[in-house]
């Protein structure tokens, strides 16, 4: 059984470019769960998430020869996955959806309105099936530009720099959008959990 650290050492750009199946399987093993979760959070649909997962690796293996190693393998993969996600969103909504800086407003965060302290609720209650369902609905209400930043930074734990690189936006834009996304979600969850403790 190859452990995660040994797997990382196996997965090098050179071995991937040589189409070494062990390195290819290693890349899939290391990142498939994260790519699937990213797609599921962005699209909230299991079939779409599976399509994104498959297309991401197919495109990655097809284009690995062009990978210039200016970013990490994970950032490169996340970028391919996010492009697939945006393509699906465009297809479903039949409208222009972009995470480009020109498309998303860079205004500051809205001021907080809901002031209810629901932190006292136990995690078991916050994350029961109804609570989880609400978390998913709240994230779906974010614009794709805000959702992408929140998913990469807060759910996938990418750094501000890697999030910026993945989305091809500036670090300042990542920070602005992250604050707006977090505040919008906080308002949404405060309205929902506030009713539960009322």
């Amino acid at each position: 059984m190859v452990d995660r650290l040994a797997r990382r050492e196996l997965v090098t750009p050179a071995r991937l470019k040589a189409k070494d199946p062990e390195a290819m399987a290693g890349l899939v093993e290391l990142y498939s769960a994260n790519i699937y979760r990213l797609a599921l959070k962005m699209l909230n649909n299991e079939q779409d998430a599976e399509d994104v997962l498959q297309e991401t690796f197919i495109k990655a293996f097809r284009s690995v020869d062009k990978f210039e190693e200016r970013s990490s393998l994970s950032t490169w993969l996340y970028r391919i996955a996010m492009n697939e996600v945006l393509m699906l969103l465009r297809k479903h909504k039949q409208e222009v959806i972009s995470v480009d800086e020109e498309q998303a407003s860079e205004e500051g965060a809205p001021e907080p309105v809901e002031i209810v302290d629901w932190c006292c609720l136990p995690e078991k209650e916050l994350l029961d099936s109804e609570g989880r369902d609400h978390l998913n609905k709240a994230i779906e209400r974010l614009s794709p530009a805000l959702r992408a930043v929140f998913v990469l930074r807060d759910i996938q734990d990418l750094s501000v720099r890697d999030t910026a690189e993945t989305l091809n936006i500036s670090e300042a834009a990542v920070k602005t959008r992250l604050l707006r996304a977090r505040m919008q979600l906080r308002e949404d969850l405060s309205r929902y959990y506030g009713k539960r403790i009322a």
Partner: protein
Amino acid sequence: MEHSSSCKHLLGSLSDYVDGELSKELCAEIERHLADCTNCQVVVDTLRRTIELYKAAVSHETVPEHVVQRLYMRLNLDDYIPH
């Protein structure tokens, strides 16, 4: 909620504050404000909890086995399907 200029000042630094990315001096300034402003303390606590909840919810999510199998098969990596 009524917002004083200190509350608005806090709002701009909120993400950096909860991520622990502010200087000691700015942190101390914010903490002095939080000690006197219950509303802002609630905003900070619920914002932190919001982020924690999403992280916790995702940590329980696993990729369905049939999805993993179909992925390896689609990539012609059948021999490497994890068992």
